[in-house]
Protein backbone atom coordinates (compact mmCIF):
# COMPACT_ATOMS: atom_id res chain seq x y z
CA UNK A 1 0.00 0.00 0.00
CA UNK A 2 2.70 2.44 1.07
CA UNK A 3 4.83 1.45 -1.88
CA UNK A 4 1.90 2.12 -4.16
CA UNK A 5 1.44 5.58 -2.66
CA UNK A 6 5.08 6.40 -3.16
CA UNK A 7 4.87 5.30 -6.77
CA UNK A 8 1.87 7.56 -7.33
CA UNK A 9 3.65 10.40 -5.58
CA UNK A 10 6.74 9.94 -7.72
CA UNK A 11 4.62 9.87 -10.84
CA UNK A 12 2.94 13.07 -9.74
CA UNK A 13 6.26 14.72 -9.07
CA UNK A 14 7.80 13.81 -12.39
CA UNK A 15 4.60 14.87 -14.06
CA UNK A 16 4.74 18.37 -12.58
CA UNK A 17 8.44 18.62 -13.35
CA UNK A 18 7.92 17.65 -16.94
CA UNK A 19 5.41 20.48 -17.41
CA UNK A 20 8.12 23.00 -16.70
CA UNK A 21 10.94 23.32 -19.20
CA UNK A 22 13.96 25.33 -18.14
CA UNK A 23 15.31 27.36 -21.04
CA UNK A 24 18.05 29.31 -19.34
CA UNK A 25 19.68 29.61 -15.94
CA UNK A 26 22.29 32.08 -14.92
CA UNK A 27 23.96 33.36 -11.78
CA UNK A 28 24.24 37.07 -12.35
CA UNK A 29 25.95 39.68 -10.20
CA UNK A 30 22.73 40.26 -8.31
CA UNK A 31 20.70 37.08 -8.33
CA UNK A 32 19.87 33.72 -9.82
CA UNK A 33 18.00 34.13 -13.06
CA UNK A 34 15.85 31.43 -14.56
CA UNK A 35 13.77 31.38 -17.72
CA UNK A 36 11.27 28.59 -18.02
CA UNK A 37 8.25 27.51 -20.02
CA UNK A 38 5.18 26.15 -18.35
CA UNK A 39 2.54 25.06 -20.83
CA UNK A 40 2.00 27.92 -23.20
CA UNK A 41 3.66 30.63 -21.13
CA UNK A 42 7.28 31.61 -20.71
CA UNK A 43 8.44 33.27 -17.50
CA UNK A 44 11.40 34.94 -15.91
CA UNK A 45 12.00 34.24 -12.24
CA UNK A 46 14.75 35.27 -9.89
CA UNK A 47 14.96 32.72 -7.13
CA UNK A 48 14.16 29.07 -7.26
CA UNK A 49 13.31 28.82 -3.61
CA UNK A 50 9.98 30.59 -3.80
CA UNK A 51 7.61 29.50 -6.49
CA UNK A 52 5.80 32.78 -6.69
CA UNK A 53 8.66 34.98 -7.73
CA UNK A 54 7.76 35.27 -11.36
CA UNK A 55 9.00 38.60 -12.58
CA UNK A 56 7.66 38.62 -16.08
CA UNK A 57 5.69 36.23 -18.27
CA UNK A 58 4.75 36.15 -21.91
CA UNK A 59 2.77 33.93 -24.18
CA UNK A 60 5.11 33.48 -27.14
CA UNK A 61 2.18 32.71 -29.47
CA UNK A 62 0.11 35.66 -28.32
CA UNK A 63 2.32 38.68 -27.77
CA UNK A 64 -0.65 40.90 -26.83
CA UNK A 65 -1.59 38.74 -23.87
CA UNK A 66 -0.55 40.11 -20.47
CA UNK A 67 -0.03 36.96 -18.45
CA UNK A 68 0.70 38.16 -14.91
CA UNK A 69 -2.26 39.71 -13.11
CA UNK A 70 -0.37 42.82 -12.03
CA UNK A 71 0.79 43.76 -15.53
CA UNK A 72 -2.43 45.47 -16.70
CA UNK A 73 -2.54 47.39 -13.41
CA UNK A 74 0.89 48.84 -14.21
CA UNK A 75 -0.93 50.81 -16.91
CA UNK A 76 -3.21 52.36 -14.29
CA UNK A 77 -1.23 55.58 -14.68
CA UNK A 78 -3.08 56.12 -17.97
CA UNK A 79 -6.08 57.06 -15.82
CA UNK A 80 -4.20 60.23 -14.96
CA UNK A 81 -2.14 60.78 -18.08
CA UNK A 82 -3.79 59.03 -21.03
CA UNK A 83 -1.21 60.20 -23.57
CA UNK A 84 2.32 59.86 -22.19
CA UNK A 85 5.13 60.86 -24.54
CA UNK A 86 8.13 60.10 -22.36
CA UNK A 87 8.22 57.06 -20.09
CA UNK A 88 10.78 56.02 -17.49
CA UNK A 89 10.84 52.41 -16.35
CA UNK A 90 12.85 51.67 -13.22
CA UNK A 91 13.37 47.92 -13.41
CA UNK A 92 13.02 46.17 -16.76
CA UNK A 93 12.18 42.55 -15.97
CA UNK A 94 11.34 40.77 -19.20
CA UNK A 95 10.60 44.08 -20.92
CA UNK A 96 6.91 43.21 -21.35
CA UNK A 97 5.70 46.59 -20.17
CA UNK A 98 8.15 48.45 -22.42
CA UNK A 99 6.90 46.43 -25.38
CA UNK A 100 3.26 47.18 -24.65
CA UNK A 101 3.94 50.90 -24.24
CA UNK A 102 5.74 50.94 -27.58
CA UNK A 103 2.88 49.19 -29.31
CA UNK A 104 0.21 51.33 -27.67
CA UNK A 105 1.90 54.62 -28.51
CA UNK A 106 4.02 54.51 -31.64
CA UNK A 107 6.66 57.22 -31.39
CA UNK A 108 6.73 57.13 -27.59
CA UNK A 109 10.13 57.52 -25.99
CA UNK A 110 11.03 54.96 -23.35
CA UNK A 111 14.01 55.02 -21.01
CA UNK A 112 14.43 51.76 -19.14
CA UNK A 113 16.84 51.47 -16.23
CA UNK A 114 17.83 48.00 -15.05
CA UNK A 115 20.64 47.39 -12.60
CA UNK A 116 21.43 43.89 -13.81
CA UNK A 117 22.96 43.63 -17.32
CA UNK A 118 22.13 39.92 -17.36
CA UNK A 119 18.40 40.71 -17.03
CA UNK A 120 18.63 43.05 -20.03
CA UNK A 121 20.21 40.27 -22.09
CA UNK A 122 17.54 37.78 -21.03
CA UNK A 123 14.79 40.27 -21.92
CA UNK A 124 16.29 40.63 -25.38
CA UNK A 125 16.92 36.95 -25.99
CA UNK A 126 13.87 35.30 -24.44
CA UNK A 127 11.14 37.90 -24.09
CA UNK A 128 11.17 39.70 -27.42
CA UNK A 129 12.18 42.90 -25.72
CA UNK A 130 12.60 45.10 -28.75
CA UNK A 131 14.54 48.33 -28.66
CA UNK A 132 12.79 50.56 -31.14
CA UNK A 133 13.92 53.99 -32.24
CA UNK A 134 12.66 55.71 -29.09
CA UNK A 135 13.83 53.09 -26.60
CA UNK A 136 16.97 53.45 -24.53
CA UNK A 137 18.20 50.97 -21.95
CA UNK A 138 20.61 51.81 -19.16
CA UNK A 139 22.34 49.18 -17.03
CA UNK A 140 22.37 51.33 -13.91
CA UNK A 141 21.06 51.74 -10.42
CA UNK A 142 17.65 53.44 -10.61
CA UNK A 143 18.45 56.00 -7.94
CA UNK A 144 21.69 57.04 -9.60
CA UNK A 145 19.89 57.34 -12.92
CA UNK A 146 17.07 59.46 -11.46
CA UNK A 147 19.50 61.85 -9.81
CA UNK A 148 21.55 62.22 -12.98
CA UNK A 149 18.44 62.66 -15.14
CA UNK A 150 17.20 65.38 -12.81
CA UNK A 151 20.48 67.22 -13.08
CA UNK A 152 20.37 66.95 -16.86
CA UNK A 153 16.87 68.42 -16.91
CA UNK A 154 15.05 65.30 -18.18
CA UNK A 155 11.28 65.14 -17.61
CA UNK A 156 8.86 62.22 -17.87
CA UNK A 157 5.10 61.90 -18.23
CA UNK A 158 5.01 58.41 -16.77
CA UNK A 159 7.40 56.81 -14.30
CA UNK A 160 6.99 53.15 -13.38
CA UNK A 161 8.95 51.90 -10.38
CA UNK A 162 9.02 48.15 -10.70
CA UNK A 163 12.31 47.32 -9.04
CA UNK A 164 11.36 45.00 -6.22
CA UNK A 165 11.85 41.30 -6.66
CA UNK A 166 10.09 38.80 -4.47
CA UNK A 167 12.76 38.67 -1.82
CA UNK A 168 14.73 41.85 -1.55
CA UNK A 169 13.88 45.52 -1.65
CA UNK A 170 16.46 48.08 -2.73
CA UNK A 171 15.88 50.32 0.29
CA UNK A 172 17.12 53.50 -1.35
CA UNK A 173 14.27 53.19 -3.89
CA UNK A 174 11.61 53.40 -1.22
CA UNK A 175 12.45 56.61 0.61
CA UNK A 176 10.70 59.98 0.63
CA UNK A 177 13.82 61.55 -0.91
CA UNK A 178 13.76 59.16 -3.88
CA UNK A 179 10.05 59.77 -4.40
CA UNK A 180 10.65 63.51 -4.27
CA UNK A 181 13.32 63.12 -6.96
CA UNK A 182 10.80 61.17 -9.06
CA UNK A 183 8.16 63.84 -8.46
CA UNK A 184 10.54 66.50 -9.70
CA UNK A 185 11.25 64.38 -12.77
CA UNK A 186 7.55 64.38 -13.68
CA UNK A 187 5.94 66.84 -16.07
CA UNK A 188 2.89 68.74 -14.77
CA UNK A 189 0.55 66.03 -16.03
CA UNK A 190 3.00 63.36 -14.94
CA UNK A 191 2.14 60.21 -13.05
CA UNK A 192 4.18 57.80 -10.95
CA UNK A 193 3.18 54.15 -10.76
CA UNK A 194 4.83 51.76 -8.33
CA UNK A 195 4.45 48.02 -8.11
CA UNK A 196 4.93 47.22 -4.45
CA UNK A 197 4.04 45.12 -1.44
CA UNK A 198 0.72 44.56 0.16
CA UNK A 199 1.44 43.10 3.58
CA UNK A 200 3.53 43.38 6.74
CA UNK A 201 4.49 46.52 8.59
CA UNK A 202 6.17 47.80 5.47
CA UNK A 203 2.73 48.37 3.94
CA UNK A 204 1.90 51.07 6.48
CA UNK A 205 5.29 52.75 6.31
CA UNK A 206 5.42 52.67 2.54
CA UNK A 207 1.91 54.11 2.27
CA UNK A 208 2.81 56.90 4.69
CA UNK A 209 5.93 57.64 2.66
CA UNK A 210 4.04 57.98 -0.64
CA UNK A 211 1.40 60.09 1.06
CA UNK A 212 4.02 62.44 2.50
CA UNK A 213 5.36 63.17 -0.99
CA UNK A 214 2.31 62.95 -3.27
CA UNK A 215 -0.71 63.41 -1.01
CA UNK A 216 -3.65 61.17 -1.95
CA UNK A 217 -2.96 58.40 -4.42
CA UNK A 218 -4.83 55.51 -6.02
CA UNK A 219 -4.22 52.44 -3.90
CA UNK A 220 -4.91 49.57 -6.28
CA UNK A 221 -5.16 46.24 -4.50
CA UNK A 222 -6.26 42.84 -5.47
CA UNK A 223 -6.44 39.81 -3.22
CA UNK A 224 -3.24 37.73 -3.00
CA UNK A 225 -1.42 40.03 -5.33
CA UNK A 226 0.84 43.05 -5.40
CA UNK A 227 -0.34 46.50 -4.58
CA UNK A 228 0.05 49.15 -7.25
CA UNK A 229 0.31 52.81 -6.31
CA UNK A 230 -0.71 55.48 -8.82
CA UNK A 231 0.32 58.97 -7.74
CA UNK A 232 0.04 62.23 -9.68
CA UNK A 233 2.53 65.07 -9.63
CA UNK A 234 -0.14 67.64 -8.87
CA UNK A 235 -2.67 65.64 -6.88
CA UNK A 236 -5.34 63.27 -8.13
CA UNK A 237 -7.71 64.64 -10.77
CA UNK A 238 -11.48 64.72 -10.23
CA UNK A 239 -13.55 61.55 -10.82
CA UNK A 240 -14.96 63.28 -13.91
CA UNK A 241 -11.49 63.73 -15.41
CA UNK A 242 -10.64 60.11 -14.65
CA UNK A 243 -13.79 59.00 -16.48
CA UNK A 244 -13.06 61.12 -19.54
CA UNK A 245 -9.46 59.84 -19.57
CA UNK A 246 -10.78 56.28 -19.60
CA UNK A 247 -12.95 57.12 -22.58
CA UNK A 248 -9.92 58.50 -24.42
CA UNK A 249 -7.85 55.32 -24.36
CA UNK A 250 -10.38 52.54 -23.79
CA UNK A 251 -10.54 51.39 -27.39
CA UNK A 252 -6.78 51.37 -27.78
CA UNK A 253 -6.26 49.24 -24.67
CA UNK A 254 -8.86 46.60 -25.49
CA UNK A 255 -6.56 44.32 -27.45
CA UNK A 256 -4.27 44.00 -24.43
CA UNK A 257 -7.20 43.31 -22.17
CA UNK A 258 -6.39 46.34 -20.08
CA UNK A 259 -9.65 47.57 -18.58
CA UNK A 260 -9.10 50.93 -16.87
CA UNK A 261 -12.61 50.91 -15.44
CA UNK A 262 -11.84 47.68 -13.65
CA UNK A 263 -8.43 48.90 -12.59
CA UNK A 264 -9.93 52.06 -11.06
CA UNK A 265 -12.37 49.87 -9.16
CA UNK A 266 -9.40 48.24 -7.39
CA UNK A 267 -8.78 51.49 -5.48
CA UNK A 268 -9.02 50.74 -1.76
CA UNK A 269 -8.34 54.30 -0.65
CA UNK A 270 -6.55 54.98 2.60
CA UNK A 271 -6.65 51.58 4.27
CA UNK A 272 -3.37 51.70 6.21
CA UNK A 273 -2.67 52.67 9.79
CA UNK A 274 -2.18 56.39 10.05
CA UNK A 275 0.80 56.76 12.31
CA UNK A 276 3.42 54.64 10.56
CA UNK A 277 6.90 56.07 10.30
CA UNK A 278 7.86 57.63 6.95
CA UNK A 279 10.86 56.00 5.24
CA UNK A 280 13.73 58.35 4.48
CA UNK A 281 17.36 58.09 3.42
CA UNK A 282 18.15 58.33 7.12
CA UNK A 283 15.64 55.68 8.14
CA UNK A 284 15.14 52.95 5.56
CA UNK A 285 14.85 49.47 7.10
CA UNK A 286 12.39 48.34 4.42
CA UNK A 287 13.60 44.75 4.36
CA UNK A 288 13.43 44.44 8.14
CA UNK A 289 9.93 45.94 8.26
CA UNK A 290 8.82 43.55 5.60
CA UNK A 291 9.61 40.61 7.84
CA UNK A 292 7.40 41.97 10.60
CA UNK A 293 3.74 41.36 10.99
CA UNK A 294 1.42 44.29 11.10
CA UNK A 295 0.50 44.53 14.77
Amino acid sequence: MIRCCIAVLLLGLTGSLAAEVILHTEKSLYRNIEVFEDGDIRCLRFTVRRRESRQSCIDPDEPDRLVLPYTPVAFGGLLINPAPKRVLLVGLGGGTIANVFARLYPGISIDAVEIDPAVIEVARNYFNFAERAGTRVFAQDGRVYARRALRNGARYDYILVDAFDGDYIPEHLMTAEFLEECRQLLTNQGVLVANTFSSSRLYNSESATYESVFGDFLNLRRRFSNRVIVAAKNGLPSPGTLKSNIALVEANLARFDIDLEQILALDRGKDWRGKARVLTDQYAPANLLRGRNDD
Partner: protein
Amino acid sequence: MAIELLGGRILAPYFGNSIYVWGSLITVFMLALSIGYLLGGRFSLRNPSLLRFGSLFLFSAAAVLPLLFFGNDFMDIVFEHIEDPRYGSLVASLVLFFLPTVALGMISPYAVRLLVEHRDQSGHVAGKLYFVSTIGSALGTLLTSFYLVLYFEVNQILVAIFAALILCGVVAAGAGRRTLIP
Protein backbone atom coordinates in the same frame (compact mmCIF):
# COMPACT_ATOMS: atom_id res chain seq x y z
CA MET B 1 32.41 48.19 11.31
CA ALA B 2 29.26 49.99 12.38
CA ILE B 3 30.45 53.04 10.45
CA GLU B 4 31.25 50.88 7.43
CA LEU B 5 27.73 49.45 7.44
CA LEU B 6 26.21 52.89 7.76
CA GLY B 7 28.53 53.94 4.94
CA GLY B 8 26.53 51.75 2.58
CA ARG B 9 23.40 53.57 3.63
CA ILE B 10 25.01 56.98 3.34
CA LEU B 11 26.34 56.37 -0.18
CA ALA B 12 23.26 54.63 -1.62
CA PRO B 13 21.18 57.74 -2.44
CA TYR B 14 24.03 59.05 -4.57
CA PHE B 15 25.82 56.04 -5.95
CA GLY B 16 23.27 53.27 -5.62
CA ASN B 17 23.48 49.95 -3.89
CA SER B 18 25.50 48.11 -6.48
CA ILE B 19 28.30 45.75 -5.69
CA TYR B 20 30.93 48.37 -6.54
CA VAL B 21 29.67 50.68 -3.80
CA TRP B 22 30.49 47.99 -1.25
CA GLY B 23 33.75 47.39 -3.10
CA SER B 24 34.68 51.07 -2.68
CA LEU B 25 33.75 51.10 0.98
CA ILE B 26 35.62 47.93 1.88
CA THR B 27 38.68 49.03 -0.08
CA VAL B 28 38.80 52.38 1.68
CA PHE B 29 38.26 50.86 5.12
CA MET B 30 40.98 48.25 4.63
CA LEU B 31 43.40 50.81 3.24
CA ALA B 32 42.69 53.24 6.06
CA LEU B 33 43.00 50.57 8.75
CA SER B 34 46.34 49.37 7.42
CA ILE B 35 47.72 52.91 7.40
CA GLY B 36 46.21 53.47 10.85
CA TYR B 37 48.02 50.40 12.23
CA LEU B 38 51.29 51.69 10.82
CA LEU B 39 50.84 55.20 12.20
CA GLY B 40 49.58 53.92 15.56
CA GLY B 41 52.74 51.84 15.94
CA ARG B 42 54.90 54.84 15.04
CA PHE B 43 53.01 57.12 17.40
CA SER B 44 53.59 54.67 20.26
CA LEU B 45 57.38 55.07 20.00
CA ARG B 46 57.48 58.55 21.52
CA ASN B 47 56.42 59.06 25.17
CA PRO B 48 53.56 56.57 25.19
CA SER B 49 50.89 57.57 27.71
CA LEU B 50 47.22 57.10 28.46
CA LEU B 51 46.74 60.79 27.80
CA ARG B 52 47.94 60.43 24.23
CA PHE B 53 45.95 57.22 23.92
CA GLY B 54 42.81 59.12 24.91
CA SER B 55 43.61 61.82 22.38
CA LEU B 56 43.41 59.16 19.63
CA PHE B 57 39.76 58.55 20.56
CA LEU B 58 39.04 62.27 20.61
CA PHE B 59 40.70 62.66 17.23
CA SER B 60 38.59 59.78 15.81
CA ALA B 61 35.47 61.44 17.16
CA ALA B 62 36.42 64.74 15.54
CA ALA B 63 37.06 62.93 12.24
CA VAL B 64 33.47 61.61 12.25
CA LEU B 65 32.05 65.15 12.39
CA PRO B 66 32.51 66.11 8.70
CA LEU B 67 30.52 62.99 7.81
CA LEU B 68 27.70 64.18 10.05
CA PHE B 69 27.59 67.78 8.92
CA PHE B 70 28.89 67.92 5.36
CA GLY B 71 28.28 64.39 4.07
CA ASN B 72 25.48 65.27 1.66
CA ASP B 73 27.03 68.54 0.46
CA PHE B 74 30.20 66.73 -0.33
CA MET B 75 28.47 63.86 -2.12
CA ASP B 76 26.56 66.45 -4.17
CA ILE B 77 29.88 67.83 -5.38
CA VAL B 78 31.30 64.40 -6.18
CA PHE B 79 28.09 63.41 -7.97
CA GLU B 80 28.30 66.55 -10.08
CA HIS B 81 31.88 65.99 -11.14
CA ILE B 82 32.24 62.24 -11.47
CA GLU B 83 29.84 60.55 -13.85
CA ASP B 84 30.90 56.95 -13.21
CA PRO B 85 29.35 55.76 -9.91
CA ARG B 86 32.28 53.40 -9.32
CA TYR B 87 34.81 56.21 -9.05
CA GLY B 88 32.23 58.51 -7.50
CA SER B 89 31.64 56.10 -4.63
CA LEU B 90 35.38 55.48 -4.26
CA VAL B 91 36.20 59.20 -4.01
CA ALA B 92 33.28 59.83 -1.65
CA SER B 93 34.33 56.92 0.58
CA LEU B 94 37.90 58.18 0.63
CA VAL B 95 36.98 61.66 1.73
CA LEU B 96 34.25 60.71 4.20
CA PHE B 97 35.63 57.56 5.80
CA PHE B 98 39.38 57.52 5.34
CA LEU B 99 40.37 59.84 8.17
CA PRO B 100 38.10 58.45 10.91
CA THR B 101 39.14 54.90 9.99
CA VAL B 102 42.86 55.73 10.05
CA ALA B 103 42.39 57.24 13.51
CA LEU B 104 40.46 54.19 14.73
CA GLY B 105 43.12 51.90 13.29
CA MET B 106 45.80 53.66 15.36
CA ILE B 107 44.14 52.65 18.60
CA SER B 108 44.97 48.91 18.63
CA PRO B 109 48.77 49.04 18.18
CA TYR B 110 48.97 51.92 20.64
CA ALA B 111 47.04 49.87 23.17
CA VAL B 112 49.48 46.98 22.67
CA ARG B 113 52.34 49.32 23.55
CA LEU B 114 50.59 50.49 26.73
CA LEU B 115 49.61 47.01 27.88
CA VAL B 116 52.83 45.09 27.20
CA GLU B 117 55.21 45.17 30.15
CA HIS B 118 57.52 42.29 29.26
CA ARG B 119 58.51 40.96 25.90
CA ASP B 120 57.43 37.42 26.76
CA GLN B 121 53.85 38.66 27.31
CA SER B 122 53.62 40.58 24.09
CA GLY B 123 52.02 37.82 22.03
CA HIS B 124 49.47 37.15 24.74
CA VAL B 125 48.57 40.82 25.09
CA ALA B 126 48.32 41.34 21.33
CA GLY B 127 46.16 38.22 21.05
CA LYS B 128 43.77 39.46 23.73
CA LEU B 129 43.60 42.85 22.08
CA TYR B 130 42.78 41.42 18.67
CA PHE B 131 40.15 39.32 20.36
CA VAL B 132 38.48 42.28 22.04
CA SER B 133 38.64 44.56 19.02
CA THR B 134 37.45 41.96 16.53
CA ILE B 135 34.64 40.69 18.71
CA GLY B 136 33.64 44.31 19.28
CA SER B 137 33.50 44.75 15.50
CA ALA B 138 31.36 41.66 15.16
CA LEU B 139 28.90 42.82 17.83
CA GLY B 140 28.83 46.34 16.40
CA THR B 141 28.01 44.92 12.99
CA LEU B 142 25.24 42.73 14.32
CA LEU B 143 23.71 45.38 16.54
CA THR B 144 23.74 48.02 13.83
CA SER B 145 22.43 45.94 10.96
CA PHE B 146 19.82 43.96 12.89
CA TYR B 147 18.43 46.45 15.35
CA LEU B 148 19.76 50.00 15.36
CA VAL B 149 18.70 50.76 11.78
CA LEU B 150 15.20 49.62 12.66
CA TYR B 151 14.78 52.24 15.36
CA PHE B 152 17.16 55.09 14.63
CA GLU B 153 18.21 57.36 11.81
CA VAL B 154 21.69 56.99 10.36
CA ASN B 155 22.79 60.32 11.82
CA GLN B 156 21.47 59.41 15.27
CA ILE B 157 23.62 56.28 15.24
CA LEU B 158 26.62 58.32 14.10
CA VAL B 159 26.06 60.77 16.97
CA ALA B 160 25.98 57.83 19.38
CA ILE B 161 29.28 56.53 17.97
CA PHE B 162 30.71 60.05 18.27
CA ALA B 163 29.59 60.25 21.90
CA ALA B 164 31.02 56.81 22.70
CA LEU B 165 34.41 57.81 21.24
CA ILE B 166 34.45 61.05 23.24
CA LEU B 167 33.59 59.11 26.38
CA CYS B 168 36.41 56.57 25.80
CA GLY B 169 38.82 59.41 25.11
CA VAL B 170 37.89 61.34 28.24
CA VAL B 171 38.06 58.23 30.43
CA ALA B 172 41.49 57.22 29.06
CA ALA B 173 42.87 60.74 29.29
CA GLY B 174 41.41 61.16 32.79
CA ALA B 175 43.04 57.93 33.93
CA GLY B 176 46.27 59.12 32.34
CA ARG B 177 46.14 62.41 34.30
CA ARG B 178 45.61 60.63 37.56
CA THR B 179 48.60 58.37 37.05
CA LEU B 180 50.73 61.39 36.15
CA ILE B 181 49.86 63.58 39.16
CA PRO B 182 51.45 61.50 41.96
